[in-house]
């Protein structure tokens, strides 16, 4: 059972062995509003910590999705591309974005735990 960590860019990441699952937080979806488009990184591509690894768009605007850690993209969630409204419905579980084979587990230590993220989210949206 691994702890979920959070980035300042409002992604969550859950580590299972050396595979990390990444998505965007509920708070992020509330700020974005109805998500109507999602673009994911290509399977097999390498992404660098804090680099862009996808896009979500609301009716109003496009926002980049960043990866909280570096690694190789081993899987992506086609279901959210087909129906982006799933991201609003269940952002922190079934509407995950991509899975990474992580490069450096210590990168996880730079991220926030749930309490710190909740505090951070509250402060930055105030």
């Amino acid at each position, binding site marked *: 059972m691994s702890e979920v960590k959070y980035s300042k860019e409002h992604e969550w990441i859950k580590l299972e062995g050396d595979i990390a699952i990444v998505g965007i937080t509920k708070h992020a979806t509330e700020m974005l509003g109805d998500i*109507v*488009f999602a673009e994911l990184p290509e399977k097999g591509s390498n992404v660098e910590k804090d680099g862009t690894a996808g896009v979500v*768009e*609301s*009716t*109003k605007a*496009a926002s980049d999705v960043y990866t909280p850690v570096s690694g190789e993209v081993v899987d992506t969630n086609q279901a959210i591309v087909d129906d982006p409204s799933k991201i609003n419905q269940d952002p922190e579980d079934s509407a995950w974005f991509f899975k990474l084979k992580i490069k450096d587990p210590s990168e996880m230590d730079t991220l926030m735990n749930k309490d710190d993220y909740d505090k951070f989210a509250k402060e930055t949206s105030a």
Partner: protein
Amino acid sequence: MEIKKTSLYQLHQDSKAKFVEFAGYQMPIQYSDGIVEEHKFTRNHSGIFDVSHMGQLFLYGDEKLIEDLEKIFPLNLKDLKLNHSKYSFLMNDEAGIYDDLIITKIEQGFLIILNAACKENDFKILSKLLNNKYKMVLDEKRSLIAIQGPKSVKILNDFINGVKDLSFMSGNWFLFKEQKIYITRSGYTGEDGFEISLPNDQAEKFTKKLIEKGAKLIGLGARDTLRLEAGLCLYGHELDKDKTPVEANLKWAISKERISKGNFIGSNKIYKQLNDGVSKIRVGVKPEGKIIAREKTKIFNQSDLHIGEITSGTFGPSVNGPVAMGYVENEFSKKDTKVFLEVRGKKYPANICGLPFYKKSYVKGANK
């Protein structure tokens, strides 16, 4: 400069609006239902829009005023019947658009509805053009509420008897709690609906009455997706000082009689463009996939030449796909012309298409 609030601010707040600053006003972008639901509710039921930030310019005068206004607007105002409205433009000498507006003939003159971001400048321009000869009031004491969607006529007529008899682009004075309110059958969503000009102190009561009868408050976010699906222009995007009504594909709004006689600001340019054609023109753009092309997205032809730019683009909830408008070189403006949109460095296929994207399929009387 302090940010302004409309008379419905408290009601918006109580209705859990998310606010955004727009043209110096604190305006609701959406409520708790979200833009997509608000959009669909307007299409299927009835949505209420606070558009009190827009300018309500009352211009008072007689035949002389009509003559002077015909030197400004490309309209046949002499024949505009009492309580009838026309869509028009305030232009510069090169027919560049300062603002697009709705002008309505009222008893002692005209009521002109102006865009919020343009109204102060419009007032200055018009004051100067009219040499301050006429009484002009940019009325801040009145609110403007729109109600749009198929159920609106029933909802409004329930307590303002007679609005159901108004024809499209016409209006009249009605009474609400013994106060005079001016209602026109018009809107900005592609739906049947009304715009109501009423004293500020009545705005909240009036809106609550609409809500009580089943209408819902809708934010500016859905207003934008609705107007885009309806193929309607938004000032600052499809229209600005560097674009003319002919380029904006709005020549239907220019009186034919007035073109042949000329003699209004910008008439030479418009006459020339109508005869010689234009180099760029506004079109609808439909991306083939799901990609959303936002404002300033570059448009390319099949030979990879840059031929234009998107001016508005979003996801259309009723179309259930991306929709956009933009300007392209005239020779690529034909319907079904294949183009490419550059989004985040990649080119995506799209087609030039007719407008609107969404057209009401329901026939009056067919709905209960």
